[in-house]
């Protein structure tokens, strides 16, 4: 006489599972530029220097589309800003924000074309000021200054 019993295997119903992994990426959006040192705006010939690289703003963005704009405290037109000595003395300048040789912005408060997502260390631009080196004005001694505001925005 043989008495035998079996326990049915529980196998197959739970042997495979799915794990969903989801990631949200926090936004990063910043613009930074090293404060420029005071520079000599008059050359050895006694005239204004033609141009000066003011700085290299760096934008870090993980938005796929964004724009940058530039503003001046003393602009007189869409393209002309001024360095101020006092309320009566200003040195006019124009500017260009460049990406390599390409001009990205050259008018105040006019957003650039859409820019793309940047690398981890950011996208670097170059900000140039241009002066009228043919101007015969004898500029009074002093420190001329302006405050330039760089703004970035997403679409």
């Amino acid at each position, binding site marked *: 006489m043989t008495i035998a019993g079996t326990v049915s295997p529980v*196998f197959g119903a*739970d042997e495979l599972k799915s794990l969903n*992994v*989801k990631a949200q*990426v926090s936004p990063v959006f910043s613009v930074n530029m090293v404060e420029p040192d005071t520079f000599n705006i008059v050359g050895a010939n006694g005239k204004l220097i033609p141009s000066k690289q003011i700085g290299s703003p760096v934008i870090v963005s993980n*938005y796929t589309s964004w724009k940058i704009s530039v503003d001046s405290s003393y602009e007189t037109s869409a393209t002309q800003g001024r360095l101020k000595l006092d309320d009566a003395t200003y040195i006019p300048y124009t500017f260009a924000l460049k990406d390599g040789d390409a001009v990205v912005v050259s008018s105040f408060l006019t957003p650039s074309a859409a820019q793309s997502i940047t*690398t*981890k260390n950011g996208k670097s631009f170059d900000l140039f000021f241009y002066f009228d080196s043919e101007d015969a004005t004898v500029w009074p001694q002093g420190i001329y200054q302006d405050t330039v505001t760089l703004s970035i925005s997403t679409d």
Partner: protein
Amino acid sequence: LVRPAWSSSISSNPLEIVLPCGSKKVLEGIMKKFFVAIMLSLLAVSFVAATDLTISGSIGQNVSVDFTDGLIAINVLGDGTGTLNGSASGFDNAAALKVISNRKKWTITFHSGNAGTLKSESLTPIPYKLHVTPVDADFATATFTNPLSAGVSLATDKTFQATADGRTKKTGGTLNVSVSVDAIGDDVFLWDAQSTYSDTVTITIAADL
């Protein structure tokens, strides 16, 4: 033919024996032999039954995996420095993978649907690492081969193996599963802030011989 005096004692028996007159002695001799033969037969039957009783049982294989919540949601820092350290372990979220096994040796295989990356349409995928850590109290004497303890990419399938004493309690044992993202290089493009990245990891368990 005559019926012997003892014939009534066996008349109720379906086996009625009728013998020729004068053959009583012969009949008695035959009956004795017949009786002895039955007794021996019964003894023989009793002896065989006592020694042929076998009780056996088998237990079916039972190995399974399950999640309390089969979702890991992580926050990745947008500046490319990797996973947000939202907890002491450095991971924002983890899933508890419950393993039930009545086999000593088993293998769990982890397979990524996106070759170890979190994807969002056509954007640059985010490579991630999967971490698997057994809860010691649940596997006190088990021996594991676990290449996922420090986190590993699922670019190819990875396995977590119980190589000895991997049997669990009825309620199972827990493997903590978590995900991390490493920092990217300075020249690598950032991951998009406005998208959700995802992957599906398929987990299978199989008993080993």
